[in-house]
């Protein structure tokens, strides 16, 4: 049984980020981390490996060469091997192009489960799992708070508006999980040292059988403007008053804005 977890390298949540003058995310401008939501997918895959349900855990990423760091971090948490698809033609790739390339790479790796985090921290589109499933013609099990495998099927526990459902599909599948799978482990020192010896292969677009020309310059969308958000008026503060007065002032404020 093999799981491939897709991993995206994103700017750190608290780092300062910006777009370059040609309106692309300046990936060098910030400290990079594994997309936090992918860490949960990694954790889920490793738990399945530890329980014996899965033999091989591999990682797949698409990005600049520096994205290999994120893959080494993933390998330091556990798992066996990693693959990076990197190509100049992929600079500025949007979700559609990302899905195309990941789908091609996943077809080549042919796992029983292609596992993803539910969204990426930077774009927050969360469309990649569904798009990849559509391109590969595989079932999609999305937003799982737990993934289990048995008898040629995959099951997820999915939280609903109230309560939860269990949704099942026959393998192979594309699945995405949320942060409810459990806290991701820290990479131990031995894990970090072992990660250096684990295989990490780099693939170009040609290696995954994608024609660069067919990728429309790696995007069907383009950013035409990037600007800082509108300056907000300074925060109004209510302090050093008793609770009655505070309550009255808040109610006044809400009423003035027709919120009550």
């Amino acid at each position: 049984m093999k799981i491939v977890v897709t991993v995206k390298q994103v700017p750190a949540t608290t780092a300062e980020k910006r777009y370059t003058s040609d309106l692309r995310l300046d990936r060098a401008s910030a400290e990079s981390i594994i997309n936090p939501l992918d860490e949960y997918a990694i954790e889920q895959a490793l738990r399945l490996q530890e329980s014996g349900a899965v033999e091989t855990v591999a990682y797949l990423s698409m990005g600049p060469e520096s994205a290999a760091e994120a893959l080494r971090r993933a390998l330091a948490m556990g798992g066996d091997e990693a693959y990076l698809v990197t190509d100049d033609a992929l600079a500025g790739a949007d979700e559609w192009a990302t899905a195309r390339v990941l789908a091609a790479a996943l077809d080549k790796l042919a796992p029983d489960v292609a596992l993803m985090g539910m969204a990426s921290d930077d774009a927050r589109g969360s469309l990649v799992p569904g798009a990849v499933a559509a391109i590969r013609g595989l079932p999609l099990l999305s937003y799982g708070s737990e993934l289990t495998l048995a008898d040629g099927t995959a099951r997820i526990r999915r939280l609903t508006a109230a309560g939860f459902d269990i949704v099942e599909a026959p393998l192979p599948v594309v699945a995405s999980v949320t942060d409810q799978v459990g806290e991701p482990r820290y990479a131990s020192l031995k894990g970090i040292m072992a990660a250096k010896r684990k295989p990490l292969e780099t693939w170009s677009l040609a290696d995954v059988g994608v024609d660069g020309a067919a990728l429309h310059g790696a995007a069907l969308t383009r950013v035409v403007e990037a600007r800082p958000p509108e300056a907000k008026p300074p925060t109004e503060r209510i302090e050093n008053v008793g609770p009655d007065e505070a309550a009255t002032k808040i109610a006044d404020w809400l009423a003035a804005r027709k919120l009550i």
Partner: protein
Amino acid sequence: MTYLPTPEHDELRAVVRELAEERIAPRAAEIDATAEFPWDLKELLAQQDLLGTGFEEQHGGTNLDTLGQCIVAEEIARADATTSLIPIVQKLGALPILLAGNDEQKDRYLPRLASGEWLIAFALTEAAAGSDVASNRMRARRDDDCYVLNGSKRFITHGSVANVLTVFALTDPEAGGRKGMSAFIVETATPGFAAPRVEHKMGIRGSPTAELTFDDVRVPVENRLGDEGDGFKIAMGTLDRSRLSIAAQAVGIAQGALDQATKYAADRKQFDQRVVDFQGIQFMLADMASQTEAARALTYAAAARVDANASDLPYWTSSAKLVAGDTAMRVTTDAVQILGGYGYITEYPVERMMRDAKITQLYEGTQQIQRLIVARQLLQRAGVSTPGRR
């Protein structure tokens, strides 16, 4: 020989820092307030293989180079000095075994230390023998296939929580401390051993500093390290290396205080501007930063020489500990100053950091002892005959 951190060292630092910021820093105030040993953090460090960094892979360790071990101590100390002592003392206590143990002794004890299953402490100091190691009085009398240990030790870090100790005692009292002392591995479960008291301290309050008593404690001959009479040399060899971890600890404490002071000064506004916009504050921060960097650079230079087995090792490790300890004290004091009144209250961590910093000027050889060591090395280099003791 290079002492610039490599990308692997940077990655190691990032990993330990993340762990320290997320799991250790939030516990620091509580550990200091309750003065309780953080068993949970010891488990966490053991799980992350951070207690085995000084041990070889064949014994279950990760065998990091000395620079890597310094980085681990530094990053943990930046979050909490007490917790940083857990890996530091694990190495300190084991050094006599690493330096003088035979293969059988190493195989018997090192794996459990590397995994963190057992804690070890270094029992050299006595009530009347601190800086003056040679005036140790504890006895080890040979009796058949055992030694019988009698006496007491004081100020032993982790002495009350350790499963095993490396203990120094006189096998030949007539010969005096320099020639008549031997080193032993003693398991604390042995009958006759007790840790009756721990000290109430100014800082590193969660680290138990214990008084140990030995009342006819029988130690098998197989647990003697090296030959009879090797004890003083083993102790000095240990301290020549272990004091570098204290330098690293001091650098970490200084960095932690500097980071807190910088953040505070950037947030706090007085007289219609941020505190950090006052040149006077910038000058203080600049001094704190450059001095911390200097202490760090010297520590790393010493680390490189430990790995190169330099013949003048004590010159380097004593210089590093001397500079780093004084730097930590200065930087933490300035950090309190920058936070003003807020620096004095327990709601902010810098007052704890200042109290914690002081110990780096005292243990593993006071700053005065370090100065004597540096002076002796310096004069040896210069071909001057070594000065008398006073």
